[in-house]
């Protein structure tokens, strides 16, 4: 039986304090009404279902918990997540999964600009499309886009890997298409399965860093 917290009755502070300090493992949050910082900073193996739309930084810095937003999420959902799973049933605003170090972020709908910006090990699966500058300076982890990607995908990419099923409007500096080998098809299949997606890995293309901007060189002046 889930512990019920109604944000129409109690503030986000009470919710987060409870999530940080009690042993209950199953939570249902009603009436989030776009509140910010809902269910952020969890360290425990909780399951949290948020029934509605959330504002900025929902499930920010999550560790271990499974947080599901049954609605849309504002800026920075699951930012800097370390582990666990965050799922958005609707769409997500910009900077979804920003700088996240681990765990799985699933966005059933579309994500906006800068999805996976500076990602550091998280896996992100987006059912729809992503906006411009997604995976900008992505360091590690995988970004899977089942729809289309906007401009400057993977700009200044480090070692994060990107899979896109639809079209890519443009690639950012130092991001190139790469061969889809068997190991990539296998890891993509696993990611799609974890995200409960039905797409065929064979329909995706892989993008990664050309690693030409790893060292500061004056010859690269026009790329900077």
């Amino acid at each position: 039986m889930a512990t019920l917290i109604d944000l129409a009755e109690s503030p986000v502070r009470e919710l987060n304090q409870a999530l940080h300090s009690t042993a209950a493992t199953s939570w249902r949050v009603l009436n989030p009404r776009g509140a910010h910082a809902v269910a952020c900073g969890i360290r425990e193996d909780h399951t949290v279902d948020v029934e509605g739309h959330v504002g900025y930084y929902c499930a920010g810095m999550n560790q271990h918990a499974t947080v599901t937003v049954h609605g849309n999420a504002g800026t920075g959902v699951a930012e800097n997540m370390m582990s666990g799973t965050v799922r958005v049933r609707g769409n997500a605003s910009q900077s979804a999964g920003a700088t996240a170090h681990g765990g799985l972020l699933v966005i059933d709908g579309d994500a906006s600009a800068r999805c996976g910006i500076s990602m550091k090990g998280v896996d992100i699966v987006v059912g729809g499309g992503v906006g411009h500058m997604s995976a900008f300076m992505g360091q590690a982890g995988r970004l899977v886009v089942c729809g289309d990607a906007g401009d400057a995908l993977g700009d200044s990419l480090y070692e994060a890997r990107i899979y896109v099923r639809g079209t890519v409007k443009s690639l950012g500096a130092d991001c190139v298409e790469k061969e889809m080998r068997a190991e990539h098809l296998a890891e993509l299949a696993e990611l799609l399965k974890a995200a409960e997606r039905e797409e065929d890995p064979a329909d995706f293309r892989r993008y990664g860093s050309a690693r030409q901007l790893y060292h500061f060189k004056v010859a690269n002046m026009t790329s900077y």
Partner: protein
Amino acid sequence: MEPATHGLRESATFDRATIHAIQRAAETGVYDIRGWGAKRKLPHFDDLLLLGASMSRYPLEGYRERCDTDVVLGTRHAKHPLRLATPVTIAGMSFGALSAQAKEALGRGAGEVGTSTTTGDGGMTPEERGHSKHLVHQYLPSRYGMNPDDLRAADAIEIVLGQGAKPGGGGMLLGQKITERVAGMRTLPVGIDQRSACRHPDWTGPDDLAIKILELREITDWEKPIYVKVGATRTYYDVKLAVHAGADVVVVDGMQGGTAATQDVFIEHVGIPTLAALPQAVQALQELGVHREVQLIVSGGIRSGADMAKALALGADAVAIGTAALIALGDNHPKYDAEYRELGSAAGYFDDYQDGRDPAGISTQDAELSARLDPAEGGRRLANFLRVMTMEAQTLARACGKSHLLHLEPEDLVALTIESAAMARVPLAGTHWIPGAGL
């Protein structure tokens, strides 16, 4: 032949350093990246003087009457404000830019005198947490090594928007300093040049910052003071926006503030001097009615108890030191002069912190060089320096009749130059004239 004795005249516009810079650029095709802060002559605290007591003010007895030095930072919202024994803190410097030994020495020295030290880009190391009595954890645009457990382990959180050496600029840790440990902490390959972003990835503008601060408070259960650090540029507006966003403490870093690696052109040509920024910050806090409620830390070229006393008199609650702390550890020490010269520098001039070959074992990740710095000895030297700074400031404050360093006030100051009078908003010595006042 000594050129000057033979009537040769050096150009003020094209002096030797400028000629060398042009020649170097022409030869190498890259701009100069270096450490340290602005080296040009700037209006500074040396241009202010304190008015000791005489007939109209009553001094306190040196070495006998108390002049307290404690300061509490983060009283506005945090459940656990930082209580420091002296209002001089250690500014943010990263493990990566500095050796593990240097970070440990900073923690030891600061802890010994009851003040705080600060992490930097790349995350918190167990050594610095272990050796720092009060540790401020920086929250930076790159989020390298950002772990919520470290936020919880910190005593305060400093959201960095910029630094005085390069307001508006990100960072670059060059590949030669990226060892396996540094790379691992930052989730990047060994040996590549690491770019640190200049903008935060998940918020833009002051309204978003308010929500970011809310998130950090929620994650840490409203326990930690939250600082906002800005490089000094449009300080009056930046401080107002930081306060509106909910900062407990505002840190203003002037253009003399140091860096581990930035373009020389950036260091010397962007930002404003600490002296010009401080009164703007105080004005902003006063207009919002939160001066002393939101504490102000000022950094950038602070070198002595005199600088500290003058900054406090102008309205700061504390100062922070970076370059001076490294010098206290042994940076630019004459004993390394021969080795500095092998690197094309000299003791007193060395600023190649980006290069990773620091003979003093401070701005390096080289195991052999780092081992030259004994953290315990470095900590002892820093603690000595911090005590001297504090005692110098107390001496000056007592002379002005103050029983606490924070009782120093602008009325205790006069300026030596017209420009410093205008910037510091105190009268030119011997006059009642504050240029620009009342305009």
